[in-house]
């Protein structure tokens, strides 16, 4: 038991115990949102940290949320089955778009623009199939009859949702850690430095990139589905499209792309910012939160590209290991 493990255990215990001690519903609601979005941002960073900047994650999130909700409403498929199905759907979408990109060396600007178009297209599809999805007016999963909450993954208790979100958030960190310690990380770092050299050194560039993209897309779809189950309302603008993709990029960059807790810090900052603005200005705040997001994003990229947590950790470590 080194101090690091002790800190982890204590922190975790405190987080699990929190909702039983502290029951203020609004604050718990904010915490649940932070945890779910942290998971989504972590999912983005898992590929973003290797220079695979995707603006298509809004698309994956939309697929996760809408497929789950549509299966439940139209076919009565429980989210316990619907969520895996939606993740598979997002995974297939990711493979269809990513495979030609990676196979034919579409990188950098090109990759960003292709994925950007992907999230735009998912938004268009959701809007176009308005007979089923409610279009831009949004969509609400049907309430389960009372007593069937577990089957429908619908809970009224904030505590339950808090624990679910906490579990998901931990899962995200574990996946991060797993990737961080796997051979894939070295392969991906080599690829992000120089694809040709990596390929010459025996790295299967396409397969490694696909693997990391698939992991990221599956996680993002899961985040979307859970968000839908928790909020019981989704609209194309909140779970899909370019704005959501950019929001992920923003949070990950502000928090710090290259450290495991960075996306979480980003989620805390972005959600608190939005809430503070909303409370201060009420409905007059419509648009202001994004205005501040946008400004901060530009400022961070210019002055602090490693993000808040990344920069702080750099300061604390006088001689950092070669990144």
């Amino acid at each position: 038991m080194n101090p690091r493990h002790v800190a982890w255990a204590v922190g975790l215990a405190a987080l699990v115990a929190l909702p039983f001690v502290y029951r203020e519903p609004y604050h718990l609601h904010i915490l649940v949102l932070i945890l779910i979005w942290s998971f989504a941002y972590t999912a983005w960073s898992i590929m973003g940290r290797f220079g695979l900047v995707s603006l298509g994650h809004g698309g994956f999130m939309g697929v996760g949320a809408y497929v789950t909700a549509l299966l439940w409403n139209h076919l009565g498929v429980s989210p316990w089955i619907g969520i895996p199905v939606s993740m598979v759907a997002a995974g297939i979408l990711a493979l269809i778009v990513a495979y030609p990109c990676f196979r034919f060396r579409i990188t950098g600007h090109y990759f960003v623009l292709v994925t950007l178009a992907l999230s735009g297209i998912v938004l268009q599809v959701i809007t176009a199939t308005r007979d089923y999805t409610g279009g831009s007016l949004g969509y609400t999963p049907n309430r389960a009859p009372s007593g069937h909450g577990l089957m429908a993954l619908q809970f009224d208790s904030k505590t339950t949702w808090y624990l679910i979100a906490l579990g998901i958030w931990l899962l995200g960190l574990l996946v991060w850690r797993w990737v961080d310690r796997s051979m894939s990380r070295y392969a991906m770092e080599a690829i992000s430095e120089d694809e040709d050299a990596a390929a010459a050194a025996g790295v299967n560039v396409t397969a490694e990139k696909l693997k990391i993209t698939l992991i990221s897309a599956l996680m993002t779809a899961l985040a979307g589905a859970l968000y839908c189950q928790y909020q019981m309302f989704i609209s194309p603008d909140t779970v899909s499209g370019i704005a959501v993709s950019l929001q992920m990029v923003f949070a990950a960059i502000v928090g710090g792309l290259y450290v495991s807790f960075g996306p979480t810090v980003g989620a805390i900052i972005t959600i608190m910012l939005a809430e503070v603005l909303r409370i201060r200005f009420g409905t007059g705040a419509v648009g202001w939160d994004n205005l501040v997001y946008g400004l901060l994003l530009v400022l961070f990229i210019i002055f602090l590209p490693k993000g808040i947590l990344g920069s702080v950790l750099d300061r604390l470590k006088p001689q950092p290991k070669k990144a």
Partner: protein
Amino acid sequence: MQAFLDIFDIYLLEAVVNGILLGGVLALLALGLNLIFGVIDVTWICYAELVMIGMYGMYYMVQVFGLPYWVAAPFAILLVAALGALLHYLVIEPLLTAPPINQLLATGGVLFILQSFATVAFGIDFRNLGIRLPVLAIGEMHFSYSRLLAFIAALLGMLAVYFFMTRTYTGTAIRAISQDRQIMPLMGVDTRRIYLITSALGGALAGLAACLLVLQYDVHPFVGLSFGPITFLICVLGGLGNFVGGFIAAFVFAEIISLGGLFSDLEWGYVLAFAFFIVMMFIRPAGLFARRS
């Protein structure tokens, strides 16, 4: 059966012509983006949002201040050109030595800023110029003058850029920089000035597109999303920085959207265009007209 075929053909022809007309404006947008990319090596994610601001500019000048369309248009073009130069000066220039992805994401931040600025300043209502241009009828086909005008103006705009690029010193310098970024400063070209001019030119093209699009579409803060993604696809398919490729790809995409819209909703036309794009990437990954190196 024969009667059915006749009607079908006329609709088909109308869709084809409308596709060509749409292609003109898309080609204009693609040209602006390609220009920026080719010269400065930056992708403006917020390009369609510049167009949106231009459309609002037109709306306010025509509807609120009562200027005639022809007087307002040059001002709108200047406005967006100035915005383009400002964007370069404030956001891109500090990041010129940063990794290219950072520049691109920074313009993503600008996208947020412009969208929410429009939301805050103008509200989320749909607005239009209130100008209804007549419809041109040839036989049984109908084309709106606004599209025809947009097509012609877009072609003229592109022609003007072409002459600027080939006949003037500045244009030549711009083309030279896009060929070799390192050598040109040594040859006595002020790259900072050229970058600024290019950004302003890219902005001006967005402004021209805004003047033309505002005749056909209502303006709202998120209008950029309806043609932004398609412009990016066009540029990637044509090859980023490749002017001719972007021009042709614009017409290919416009036809797909127009014909797809004939058989189903317009949104499905976009989806079809995206599917086509994915297929094309398998066939010609480096863009339609990539030179094999």
